[in-house]
């Protein structure tokens, strides 16, 4: 498995080449180099996955954890940060997801980004991102994960801010970085606590040390979850993700839908054995936060008018599903309470595919109509048949219609939730229904509904070039078949093979709910006039406005940063520094100057005065001497 190092070297190499020499090459050449290196990476990861799973299980029925590389990068006395490559079922699964999506995005961008200034820079940044993301999932220890975690954060910053002359993009990139950095502070402190009490940064520490650490382990794991919540846009740290849509659309597909935003889920999954054994009381909270996030985001997604925002909130909601699935796991055994882990990873996998497809489809639409707003669309099915069909497949998948992949993974999640407790099960089923509703609202508003004739006559939308439709077709094909992958055979909470069986009741409930929601959406949005929607929006104007404004959570954050940090902390500190501290030292200087001014008449450079003083002094001294 030594060749796995290529997974990091190839993208690093293409990043350096494109970053340093990009300006000296033609855009086409740069795109070609980037895509070629990604083809290499994809081949290597598929080869790795094949070899890994084909090599079979250990005697105890578990896939082995392989560490082909591990170097000491920076020692700290007893602790040390290592760098290496670790392969286990979830990291291999992630390799496949990342390389597939990244390759699709690389190909897609050849068409989508054609003619943009900074084309070379774009490819350099997505190479950097791919390297960091691959490094994150193959990390051998939590600190290496943190390092690459920061690197994906910065790649995301650079790509969101790709159009660096646009004020909205600048603000969005800044916000994304700072909010996730804030969450990473929790992650870092969690790592420090973990490292100190457990004596290692590795994922498989000594059990005796873990037991003796006591209450510190739940604390450390909770803090790490804060970091994960920041990256994975859990409420209330989700605010950066909708704004991050300011980046180029393929970037949203790659980073903000399929790979980076699920890093938090991956982190929890990675620490899952520790959560189960040493912090079981934290897991339900993860489930509650995930469920609330899913509900909140689904509610907001129902009323947004920017198609990328709808998809962004849908992503947040779906990641909530994955978190819930992890949180409702109550044991390590998949047959007895541990189903959620497998369901979460399965959903991560299928969601990455269909959400990337949705985003790339949205990119194709935006490419055609030059706007993100639904009002510029409508009736596009006639102009863009390929985009239409693939988008429909993705919508059906996310709504959970058999036999598309989303059905299978969502069904497992709902089954896990019903196992945990019925309330959670019904809540998540309801949210799944909302998902189907807002996705079909989106679908109808884009492809059916009221067409913006004026705009379309002035500028007829047309189907995107092959470089863009090919990835859509491939991803749609994957979405159609991915559900039949016997996922439990590869990934499960304790590593043993788990046979996925569809629970008929849950499946029936979720299917009925999904079909009803789609029907409702059809009723409301499919026609060119939408009286029901308009009536509802005016009837519940307050609610509609609140949801449209994302329930004003952003306002709270703006208040915290602008008013509290800048106005109430930084400005007074700067004032204090300038007037009190500086003032004090200036005052010392002034006092000295004042004093010397006061006594300088003694030294007025007139010899006569000096003589008088000299004489007077002598006389005075003589008198004193004579007296005493």
């Amino acid at each position, binding site marked *: 498995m030594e060749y796995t190092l290529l997974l990091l070297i190839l993208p690093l190499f293409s990043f350096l080449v494109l970053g340093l020499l990009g300006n000296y090459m033609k855009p086409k050449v740069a795109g070609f180099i980037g895509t070629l290196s990604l083809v290499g990476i994809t081949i290597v990861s598929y080869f790795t996955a094949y070899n890994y799973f084909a090599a079979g299980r250990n005697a105890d029925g578990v896939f082995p954890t392989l560490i082909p590389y591990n170097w000491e990068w920076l020692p700290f006395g007893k*602790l040390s940060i290592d760098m290496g490559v670790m392969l286990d079922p979830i990291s291999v699964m992630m390799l496949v997801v990342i390389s597939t999506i990244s390759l699709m995005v690389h190909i897609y961008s050849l068409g989508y980004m054609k003619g943009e200034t900074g084309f070379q820079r774009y490819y350099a940044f997505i190479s950097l991102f791919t390297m960091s993301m691959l490094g994150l999932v193959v990390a051998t220890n939590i600190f290496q994960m943190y390092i690459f975690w920061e690197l994906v954060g910065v790649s995301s910053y650079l790509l969101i801010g790709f159009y660096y002359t646009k004020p909205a993009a*600048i603000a969005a990139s800044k916000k994304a970085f700072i909010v996730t950095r804030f969450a990473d502070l929790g992650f870092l402190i969690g790592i420090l606590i973990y490292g100190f009490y457990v004596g290692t940064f590795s994922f498989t520490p000594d059990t005796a040390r873990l037991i003796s650490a006591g209450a510190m382990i739940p604390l450390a794991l909770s803090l790490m979850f804060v970091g994960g919540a920041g990256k994975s846009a859990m409420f209330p740290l989700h605010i950066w993700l909708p704004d991050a849509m300011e980046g180029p659309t393929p970037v949203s597909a790659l980073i903000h839908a399929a790979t980076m935003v699920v890093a938090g889920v991956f982190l929890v999954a990675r620490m899952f054995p520790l959560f189960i054994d040493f912090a079981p009381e934290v897991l339900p909270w993860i489930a509650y936060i995930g469920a609330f996030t899913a509900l909140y985001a689904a509610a907001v997604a129902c009323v947004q008018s920017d198609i990328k925002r709808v998809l962004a909130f849908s992503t947040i909601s779906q990641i909530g599903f994955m978190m819930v699935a992890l949180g409702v796991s109550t044991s390590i055994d998949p047959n007895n309470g541990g189903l959620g882990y497998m369901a979460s990873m399965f959903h991560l996998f299928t969601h990455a595919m269909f959400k990337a497809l949705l985003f790339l489809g949205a990119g194709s639409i935006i490419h055609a109509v030059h706007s993100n707003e639904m009002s510029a669309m409508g009736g596009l099915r006639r102009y863009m048949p390929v985009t239409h069909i693939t988008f429909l497949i993705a919508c059906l998948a996310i709504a959970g219609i058999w036999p598309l992949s989303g059905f299978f993974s969502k069904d497992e999640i709902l089954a896990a939730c019903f196992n945990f407790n019925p309330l959670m099960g019904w809540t998540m089923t309801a949210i799944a229904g909302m998902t189907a509703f807002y996705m079909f609202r989106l679908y109808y508003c884009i492809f059916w509904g009221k067409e913006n004739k004026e705009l379309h006559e002035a500028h007829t939308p047309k189907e995107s070039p092959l470089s863009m439709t090919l990835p859509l077709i491939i991803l749609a094909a994957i979405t159609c078949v991915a559900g039949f992958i016997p996922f439990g055979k590869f990934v499960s909470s304790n590593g043993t093979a788990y046979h996925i069986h569809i629970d008929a009741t849950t499946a029936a409930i979720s299917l009925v709910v999904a079909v009803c929601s789609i029907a409702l959406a059809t009723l409301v949005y499919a026609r060119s006039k939408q009286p029901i929607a308009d009536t509802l929006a005016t009837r519940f104007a307050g609610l509609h406005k609140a949801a449209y404004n994302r329930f004003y959570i952003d306002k709270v954050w703006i208040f915290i940063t602008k008013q509290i940090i800048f106005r109430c902390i930084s400005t007074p*500190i700067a004032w204090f520094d300038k007037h009190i501290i500086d003032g004090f030292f200036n005052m010392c*200087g002034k006092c000295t100057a004042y004093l010397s001014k006061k006594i300088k008449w003694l030294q007025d450079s007139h010899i006569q005065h000096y003589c008088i003083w000299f004489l007077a002094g002598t006389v005075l001294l003589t008198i004193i001497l004579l007296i005493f």
Partner: protein
Amino acid sequence: MCNILILFVVIPLVMMLGLWASRSLCQVKVVMVSGASLLLALSIYIVFNYIGLRNAGNDAEMLYTSSIMWYEPLNICFSLGVDGISVVMILLSSIIVFTGVFASWRLKPMTKEYFLWYTLLTVGVYGFFISIDLFTMFMFYEVALIPMFLLIGVWGSGRKEYSAMKLTLMLMGGSALILIGILSIYYGAGASTMNITELSQIEIPTNIQHTFFPLLFLGFGILGALFPFHTWSPDGHASAPTAVSMLHAGVLMKLGGYGCFRIAMYLMPEGLAMWGEVFLILTTISVVYGAFSACVQTDLKYINAYSSVSHCGLVLFALLMMTRTSCTGAIMQMLSHGLMTALFFALIGMMYGRTHTRDIREMSGLMKIMPCLAVCYVIAGLANLGLPGFSGFAAEMTIFVGSFENTDTFHRVCTIIATCSIVITAVYILRTVGKFLYGEVNNPEFLQLTDASWDEKVAVFTLIVCVAGLGLAPLWASDLISTSVEPIISQFIK
């Protein structure tokens, strides 16, 4: 006397002679470049030779030691010697002197005189790092201070007279405290030697340590921009010419941390035990206070100066955490901050030379006009906010992991407060970058400006390579430093 270290003082002196004899600008530059390159080559050689000697099993505390009596009645010797800490400091100084020469390539007027003072400054800096005699160190320290006054006062910008005066007076105040501290050590240890390694063997009476430790620590702390004595630094840096800002923030401020560690903490462990927590509070304030102050500044140099207060505060903070890892981190942070801040000041100087303003509200969209400088600025910013792959990350993580080893609750609380600085750093760096590099060009006059010239590229690229090199492969520096930290911290860790 046959000691390679003496070359670090001799070469700059020879350079000064050469400068004095130079008749044209070209000759001045030849002297400076050849001298600075020679110094750089020599320090790289010293680093490798030092590592070689250590690997060969030489475990003396100081290597390349030699000593000649200078003034018998007070036992003042010219004693030289280096350990891992001074070696990396020498390397840092050489890199910055070298890049500083290129950063002041087009400086006018009185180029020759400028470089004369600049070289004298380097004499002081090198002298301080290579000597292990208290008095000699103090002397070199003073040598470094005086040229600063002239360099800022004559070649500076803005309120240069005020800043030069403020900086020099405050640092002179600090050096008065240092002198008192040094004398107390000398007499406390029985007035027999000024050599640091010998002094470390002698127990200085506890009451003397308790009384004089704060003076000595404060004296060096002022130079290390310890709150509330940091106020010389923003004004001083803002007014100083580019290369002087680089050298000052990059190296001179490190003299403070170095002195605190090598003299105050090493020789007065009892004093440290008594006063450590008081100073820890001040340094923790420095770290957070500097970062928050930087958030609302509008002058690029002020932003960077407050950022330096925060990062240099972290150096002293880590030293006061008193674990082996945190002290190693402190020295790494000195190295890393020296390189990063020099890079910043170099870039700011270059941009200021073009736009004639440092106010971020008056600039916008410089990325379009001078992409090379702007990209380098973004890289410097990312390095400064502790992005993995750059030196800042390795240093800060060593500090935080090391600080966490101190299990005392009070120290823990301070550690957690200090870690918050990583978020605030991100806030001010991204705010700055977003304001003046990104966006549309707002001033049509800027459209005629040019990108970096070759000499500027030499300076900037050298620093970026160093920052990235240290960040990607921190192992060698960490190894080099931690072995030398050992004898010092064994004094105060029971």
